[in-house]
């Protein structure tokens, strides 16, 4: 059903397709720019974790690799606790087998997934009979600066966000058609999204609940077999994964530690920080227009789908308050929600513009949209050009050689030792950073005194490696203790190595 009250933006359908294709090509182009730079610009700890896992998987089946390298790569992979199923990492590892190990492979996959998410936004707009509005929502989703940075990060989040958009599309698709095929499709996509990263459950459960509640009668909802099937298909992959992770191998236990901080909910500043973080990364105007746009949806199912997703996002924030104000990427599920909320208002606007006589208004709209997109691309390009990390490889490699792969080390670093592990092939245990200590204090943990902790941590270690000057500066007790009691083996640009052996 096409929107009945206004004309289309372009009289010729190929023009609209050309515009959409142009947006996708531009989106891919900017994501491939500076492709071979290191992934240090966006939550590098999380990205290097994925890189280590992918490399471990790759080396496990790489007969040509030296034995010591294979052992270290696999050990580094196994040391990483399981948080989510390593889908992105497996894909990257498989690709390494075809083209060799390249740091940018994960980035290409993440970017492609994000673009696929954009396609779902576009299809959802079509499904809502608001294709004209979909153009703006799509441009927002593909070219929001924060979204761009997040979308090429080698993390599960890009795939999760894409699957959230596909699930929203599939849920609405099912609601409109109410066939068994569409019900199973909705269940599979929603289940996949939650499997990729479990936090997707919040917006999707909210959206699904909103959609189902829009039907009105609770009795009708409860006796609806399709609804139960959707719920079951959604739950199955995640239930199996958690059963495997918690009961069979037990590697998932650790992921629930230091996550829940209900005390923060009583702190008014938490809500301010939440609001400012969300506004800062998504844009005030976008949030405002998206929220008010909800009021313009024509039917209850459309409104409640988005309201439910918003509700789920809010519950997500309450469940992970600490991460919501410290990890910007926790807000990624908000991006597709905002994009979908933009559709009705944008559709109304664009159709009214298209309603004007002559080609000028349409050309102006297209020109302004493309100029806005070009501006965001230029901004991102400048950011990428001005942030260059390639020189770091040699630094970490040299440090790795200096330490040696056979040493048992403890490290004070700003990145949990990931760069040293990845480029230098040296892993070790970690001395807590200031931020980690603060997190534990927030969780009510009382650390033992310094001497006990130090003795405990260095037990069996050969050397203490410091690779973070700010942490070194901010931990005077450790600095003084190491300097006074242990010989400094080596010191260079940003690192200190102490011999812990008597």
């Amino acid at each position: 059903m096409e929107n009945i009250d206004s004309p289309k933006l372009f009289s010729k359908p190929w023009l609209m397709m050309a515009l959409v294709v142009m947006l996708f090509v531009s989106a891919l182009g900017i994501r491939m720019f500076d492709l071979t730079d290191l992934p240090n610009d966006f939550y590098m700890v999380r990205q290097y974790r994925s890189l280590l896992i992918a490399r471990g998987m790759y080396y496990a089946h790489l007969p040509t690799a030296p034995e010591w390298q294979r052992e270290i790569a696999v050990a580094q992979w196994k040391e990483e606790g399981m948080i989510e199923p390593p889908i992105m990492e497996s894909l990257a590892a498989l690709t390494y087998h075809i083209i060799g190990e390249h740091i940018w492979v994960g980035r290409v996959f993440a970017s492609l997934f994000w673009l696929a998410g954009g396609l779902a936004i576009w299809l959802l707009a079509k499904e809502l009979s608001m294709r004209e509005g979909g153009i703006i929502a799509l441009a927002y989703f593909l070219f929001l600066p924060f979204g761009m940075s997040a979308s090429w990060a080698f993390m599960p989040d890009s795939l999760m966000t894409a699957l959230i958009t596909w699930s929203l599309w599939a849920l609405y698709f099912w609601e409109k058609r109410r066939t068994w095929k569409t019900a199973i499709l909705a269940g599979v996509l929603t289940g996949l999204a939650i499997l990729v990263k479990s936090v997707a459950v919040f917006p999707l459960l909210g959206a699904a609940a909103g959609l189902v509640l829009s039907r009105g009668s609770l009795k009708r909802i409860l006796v609806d077999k399709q609804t139960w099937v959707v719920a079951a298909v959604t739950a199955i992959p995640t239930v199996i994964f958690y059963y495997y992770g918690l009961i069979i191998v037990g590697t998932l236990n650790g992921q629930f530690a230091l996550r829940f901080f209900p005390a923060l909910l009583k702190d008014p500043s938490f809500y301010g920080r939440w609001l400012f973080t969300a506004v800062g990364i998504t844009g005030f105007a976008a949030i405002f227009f998206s929220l008010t746009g909800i009021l313009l949806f024509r039917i209850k199912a459309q409104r409640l789908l988005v309201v439910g997703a918003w509700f789920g996002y809010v519950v997500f924030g309450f469940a992970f308050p600490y991460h919501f104000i410290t990890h910007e990427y926790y807000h990624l599920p908000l991006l597709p929600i905002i994009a979908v909320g933009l559709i009705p208002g944008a559709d109304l606007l664009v159709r009214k513009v298209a309603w004007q006589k002559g080609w000028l208004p349409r050309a102006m709209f297209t020109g302004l949209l493309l100029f806005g997109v070009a501006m965001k691309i230029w901004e991102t390009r400048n950011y990428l050009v001005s942030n260059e990390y390639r020189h770091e490889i040699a630094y970490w490699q040299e440090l790795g050689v200096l330490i040696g792969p056979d040493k048992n080390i403890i490290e004070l670093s700003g990145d949990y030792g990931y760069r040293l592990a990845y480029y230098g092939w040296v892993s070790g245990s970690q001395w807590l950073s200031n931020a980690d200590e603060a997190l534990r204090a927030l969780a009510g943990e009382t650390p033992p005194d310094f001497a006990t902790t130090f003795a405990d941590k260095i037990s069996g270690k050969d050397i203490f490696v410091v690779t973070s000057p700010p942490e070194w500066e901010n931990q005077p007790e450790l600095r003084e203790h190491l300097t006074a009691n242990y010989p400094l083996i080596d010191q260079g640009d940003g690192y200190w190595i102490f011999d812990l052996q008597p």
Partner: protein
Amino acid sequence: MKNFFLRYFVFREHPWMWKVSLILALLAGFGLRMINLTNPPLDFASTRQLFSALKARGLYYQYVTDAPDWKRQLAISLGRVGTVEPPVLETLVSQTYRLTGEHLWIARVYSSLFWVLGGLALFLLIRELASTSAAMIGTLFYLFVPFGVIASRIFLPDPLMVGLIVFALWALFRWQNTAKWKWAILFGIFAGAALFVKNLSAFFILGGFAGVMIGARGLKRSVRDPQAWVMALLMVLPVGIYTLYGIMKLDMSGQFALRFFPKMWIDPSFYFRWAWTVNWAIGWGVTLLAALSVYLADPRRERPLLIGLWMGYLLFGMTFPYHFFTHDYYQMPFIPVVAISMAPAFRLFFERFFERSPGVFPRLVLVGTVLVGIAVQSWYSRSQLVNSDYQKEPSFWTEIGDKLGHGPGVIGLTQDYGYRLAYWGWQSSAAWFTSADIDLRYLADQDVNIIEKFTDDTSGKKYFLVTMFGELDNQPVVKDLLYANYPIFDQTDEYVIFDLQHPLNQP
């Protein structure tokens, strides 16, 4: 209960609710601008604000009888910083000083008041152009957009100019719709006042005027209309007289130098930087909405004014390409243009909203969303106002002024071309070029011989003061000249004073 809410608390059916809301919004907008009122005016366009502060103090000290004579003479002399526009705000502030004593924040109160009063005219204009609901949203945008909050409390003629532009546009639109002499004369007065206060308002006033005359009424009809001629005459008369007087008597011809850089037009980065500036100051989303919204306006009644304003803004940017990036406050008049332009889109939104959401709940949701939006913007502005703290600046400059002795013969590489030193240190000084000044001259194809200029500028001077060490590092030739040839008279971590009277290599 539902009917009670609908009848008494949900705007549309009750005009008094709009009035109450508008008054509350204007008061809240004014209150927000009073945060950290006594902070020295260095958070935004500090050079220009201190220029006005010095001028106002100079005017004030002409009437002060209980100050030491040297101070009075110095204040008057430092107040002669040049003439850019008629010192309307400075005069107003200086006259207020006579009642209250000298307080820099008085200018902040006036500027904020002028901006907020402009909000009243904006509401009336958008209401006439689109609808009451759209007018409320447009006015809230104008009052609470963070850049506007920060920029509208400055000691510059711009907030007054913007306020007068909005009043003039309101009168113009009323005249377009009524053709009454009252509105013609009111437009002439407001537009004339805006142009008199700052002639850069011409781009918006003339843009809107041309839009209405050509697009809404037709050129032929307008040319034959005596009201149009009276409007034009009232508009240009004050600024015309002042400009002629200024060029002949006040040596104002200098203000036209280093302003026009047409070669920037062919540089694509100019347009990206322009767009980036708009994005930073106003927001790309709302600007895009405003631009598209022009096409939703009635082609005969509403669109001419809007197109005229946009053309005026574009022409403004093309005329001053360099200043558009380096002087944030050049974007201030664009705020009401965006607010007015968004009105047709918001009218459309509200029509559809009231059609699809007849109940009380959606209205309360909408009101709640708008209130949260205002709160977020206000809190953001407040954070910026509170975080930029310059309370220590006056004592720092007072100390340097005392060291230098308040006499002539000082040249400096100091903040704001020496205006901070002049205002708080009571010390006049010649300003040595910053690297930006040198770049500007290169951009204007001027040749700058640094050694020659140093010799000329320091000739007859006693001291060279440096408080901008980064700038000194950017000018290695000057740094070498100073450190190699002159003894240090005094220094701390924050400043160094070179003694120019006793060069090191003097025989």
